[in-house]
C-alpha cells in the first residue's frame, strides 16, 4: 500500500469501497444491456464475435472490462450512425454529436438523453449560492454539431433558467490557425465576444455562464475595455472547459479576471473536463491554498477515468504518479470499455465528495503533444 493510499481516511476508504461495489454492479448491468440480442446495438452485437470471450458470461466486475480491446475512436468515423443505437432504445429520437471534423470525417456519437443526464448530475455539484436557481445563463462556446450548446441549455432549464447562446465554430478556428490567418482569427474571436458583451449588457439577468478558457479570458478583457467586469455585469458563477486548464491559468483568472478568490467576493469558477464520449468530469474545488491544483472526477458509475501506465494501459499507476488517461463510458446509450485519451496526468485519491479515482494536471499526452492543436477556442 502506498503512502497516499494509507493516508486515505477510513470513512473515505469505506465510501470508496461502496462506490466500487456500485461500479461493479453497474458494469454488469451495462454489459448485459449492450450484449443482449434484444437490447444491444448492432455495433457491439457484431463485435461480440471478434472478442474471443463471452461478455455476458466473462464480465463479472469493472476490472473485467480490461478483457476488451481498447476502444478505437476511429470506429466512430463514418456511418451508418444507426449501428450504435441499442435495440432497447429503438424508435426514440436520437441526437448525433460530433468531434473533430476540421478536415475529413468527424467522429460521431449518437445520444438520446445522456447529455441531459450528465448535466443534471453536474448540476448537483454546482453551489446554488454561485449558480442561483432560476437565473439565466450564457453559453459562450461551440454549438453546431457539438453537444455543448444543447447540454448547457438543458442545464440552465433544469435549474429553472433560460440559456442565451453565442456560437463559435471550432473547425473554422482550427482552419484559420492552420492557414496562419491570425487577423481573421482575432476578428472572429472579437465577433463572438462582441455578441456575448451585448447579451450580458442587455438586461437579461444573466448570472451564470459557460465559456471555454480562451473565450472567458477574451470576454473578461473586452468587458474591462468597456469599463466594466464579469462581476459588474452580474455574473456569479462560471463553469469552464473544453480545452486544457492549468493551475497557472486558473490563478491568473482568479487573481486578475474574476475579482479575486470567491471567499473575497470574486466570481466563482469551476473547471470541467469532458468530451463527447465520456460526459463531464467535475473538479475538486480549486483553491489558492492547494496551489490552484485541478483534480477531475468522472461521474461514476456512468463514466470512469483511470490513470494508467504508459507501458501497460491495463495497469493503473499509484496515487500521485503520472500516466495516460483512460476513459470508460458505461451508460445504457453508449458503451466504451476503455478508451485511451489524448491526455496524461497524475492519479488522484478518492475524497469524501467523489470517493473514487480522479486525475489532476491534465495535459496533452507527451507522445502526441507536438501533433495536437490544443486550446484553439
Amino acid at each position: 500500500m502506498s503512502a497516499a493510499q494509507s493516508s486515505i481516511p477510513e470513512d473515505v476508504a469505506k465510501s470508496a469501497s461502496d462506490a466500487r461495489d456500485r461500479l461493479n454492479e453497474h458494469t454488469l448491468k451495462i454489459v448485459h444491456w449492450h450484449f443482449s440480442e434484444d437490447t444491444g446495438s448492432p455495433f457491439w452485437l457484431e463485435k461480440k464475435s471478434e472478442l474471443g470471450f463471452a461478455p455476458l458470461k466473462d464480465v463479472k466486475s469493472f476490472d473485467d472490462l480490461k478483457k476488451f480491446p481498447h476502444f478505437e475512436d476511429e470506429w466512430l468515423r463514418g456511418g451508418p450512425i444507426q449501428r450504435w443505437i441499442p435495440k432497447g432504445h429503438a424508435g426514440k429520437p436520437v441526437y448525433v454529436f460530433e468531434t473533430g471534423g476540421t478536415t475529413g470525417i468527424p467522429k460521431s456519437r449518437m445520444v438520446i438523453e445522456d447529455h441531459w443526464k450528465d448535466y443534471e448530475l453536474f448540476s448537483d455539484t454546482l453551489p446554488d449560492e454561485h449558480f442561483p436557481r432560476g437565473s439565466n445563463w450564457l453559453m459562450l462556446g461551440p454549438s453546431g454539431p457539438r453537444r455543448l450548446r444543447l447540454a448547457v441549455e438543458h442545464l440552465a432549464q433544469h435549474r429553472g433558467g433560460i440559456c442565451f447562446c453565442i456560437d463559435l465554430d471550432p473547425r473554422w478556428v482550427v482552419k484559420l490557425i492552420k492557414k496562419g490567418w491570425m487577423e481573421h482569427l482575432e476578428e472572429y474571436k472579437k465577433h463572438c465576444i462582441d455578441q456575448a458583451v451585448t447579451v450580458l449588457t442587455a438586461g437579461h439577468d444573466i448570472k451564470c455562464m459557460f465559456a471555454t478558457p480562451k473565450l472567458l479570458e477574451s470576454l473578461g478583457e473586452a468587458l474591462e475595455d468597456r469599463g466594466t467586469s464579469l462581476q459588474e455585469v452580474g455574473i456569479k458563477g462560471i463553469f469552464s472547459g473544453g480545452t486544457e486548464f492549468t493551475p497557472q491559468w486558473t490563478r491568473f483568472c482568479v487573481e486578475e479576471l474574476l475579482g479575486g478568490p470567491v471567499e473575497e467576493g470574486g466570481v466563482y469558477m469551476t473547471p470541467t473536463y469532458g468530451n463527447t464520449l465520456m460526459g463531464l468530469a467535475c473538479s475538486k474545488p480549486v483553491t489558492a491554498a492547494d496551489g490552484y491544483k485541478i483534480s477531475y472526477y468522472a461521474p461514476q458509475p456512468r463514466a470512469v477515468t483511470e490513470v494508467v501506465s504508459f507501458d501497460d494501459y491495463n495497469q493503473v499507476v499509484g496515487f500521485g504518479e503520472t500516466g495516460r488517461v483512460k476513459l470508460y463510458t458505461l451508460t445504457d446509450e453508449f458503451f466504451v470499455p476503455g478508451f485511451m485519451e489524448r491526455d496524461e496526468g497524475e492519479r488522484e485519491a478518492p475524497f469524501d465528495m467523489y470517493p473514487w479515482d480522479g486525475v489532476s494536471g491534465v495535459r496533452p499526452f507527451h507522445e502526441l503533444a507536438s501533433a495536437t492543436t490544443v486550446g484553439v477556442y
Partner: protein
Amino acid sequence: MITLQPLRWGKPYESMEIKDVVHFDTGEPIAKFGSVGGGIVARDMKQAHKARAALLKHSTDELIAMSKKAAELFETAELPVGDSMQSVDQFVHQQSASTGLPEHMCRSNLKKNSFVLSHIDEILDCLTRGLDLDILSKGYGEEGRGVIVSYQAQTPVLGAILPNNSPGVHTLWLPAIPLQIGLALKPGSQEPWTPYRMVSAFIQAGVPAEAFGLYPGGHDAGGAIMTKTPRSMIFGSAETVAQHAGNPRVQAHGPGWSKILIGDDVVDDWELYLDMMVESVLSNSGRSCINCSGIWASRHTREIAAAIAKRIGPVDVLPPTDDNAQLAAFTVPAMATGTHAMVQQDLAESGVTDMTAEYGDKLIEREHCAYLRPMVVHADSPDRGVAMKEYMFPFVSVVECPQAEMLRRIGPTLVGTVLTRDPELVAAAGACVDIDRVNIGPIPTNRLNWLQPHEGNIIDFLFRSRAYQVADLPVAANA
C-alpha cells in the same frame, strides 16, 4: 539551479507553470523558467504606455549613456539573472548547454550584442541620418532648414518573439530602449539567456525596470504579444515570414538565402575569394540568415565547390568547450534527421552533386541531440531545387548560372555579396530588389556593418514621418 521567472513591466511574477531548460547533450535540466499565457500578456499590454512614459522621463542622451553602460555590464559583469547571480562564464556555459552552440560562438555572439549596444549612438545617428533624437522624443522639431519635421512613435513598446537557438539576432531589438520604446519580449525556450541578461544589464545601468516585459511561454503568449503590440518582430521560418507579409505591424525575420555572386570578370580568379566564401558558409555553424547558402557563377563552379568542400567537408563534431568546435548541435534531433532527409531529396535530382560525399557521414545522431556536418552541393543550373535551399547547418549550393540571368533568378537574398568590377553588374545588383543588403566586393556575408539598416530600418518601423504644422493663435481683442 537558476530559475527565470516572467517580468511584468519590471515586476517579477512567480509563475506556477515551471518548465525545464535542458542540456542539449545530456538531457539534464540546467535551469527552470516560469511561463505565462496570453491572458497575462494581453492584460500587461494595456499598460504598455507606462513603459514608454518611464523611458520618456530620461532623455535619449541619458538612455544612450545607460545603454553603453549596459553593454559593458552585459559583456563583463556578474549580473542578477532570475534568482541567481550570473557571471559571464556561467552565461556562456548556460547558453551553450541549452542551444548546442559551441562556447566560443556564444562568446562571439555576446561580444556582438555588446558591440552594437556600445555603439548605439553612432548606429542611431546613422539610422536616423543625423536627426536630433529629441525630435523622436517630442514627436516633432526643427531640423535646421526652417521646416518642422515630425516623427511619431507608432507604439509605446516593441514586441519580439525571439528565436530558440540564435543568440545573434538580439541586436535587432536593442535600439528600442534609447529610442524610448519599451520592450515586451518572449524569450526562446532554449535561449532565454540573452534577453534575461540584457534586460538585467539595462536595469543595472539605470534604465527603468518598468520598460521591460519578459514573457516566457508558448504560442499563446507570443500570439498575444503580436496582437496587442502595434509593432513587433518575429523570428521564424519562411512560412512565418509569408504569414506576416504585408503586415505593417510585424517585422518578420526568417531564412536569409544569403548569396555570393561572382561576376564573369573575376570568376577566373575565384581562388582569391576562397577564404571569404568559407567564412560566409561556416561561421556560427551556418545557423544564421546571414550565412551564405548559395554561390553563383557562370563557370568554374565545380572547382569552387570542390575547393570549399575540401576546406569544410572534414569539419567534425567537437565538444562545445573546444575552441576549435565549428558545429552546433541540433537540440531537437528530429530537426537534424528531417533536414538530412530533405537534403537527400535535393541530391536525388539530376544535375545535383554532393561535393562533400567523400568526407564521411553527415548525420551524427546522439542520444539527446544530433549534428549535421558541412555539405557543399553543386547544381548545374538554377533550375535545380537545391539552388533555393537554406538549412540550419553549414550548407551551400554552388550554382552554375550565366551572369546575364543571375540577378533575375537568385530570388530573395538577405545579404548579396557581389564580386565584380563590372560597373554594369554593380549597378544592376544595386537595383535588384531581391537583394536586401548588398556588398560590392569581397565582404563575407556574415560581416555586417551595424551602421546600416538590417532588413528594414528600425526607425521607420517604430516611427512614422508625418506633417506637423504650427501657427500662433491670434490674441483676443480684450486680452
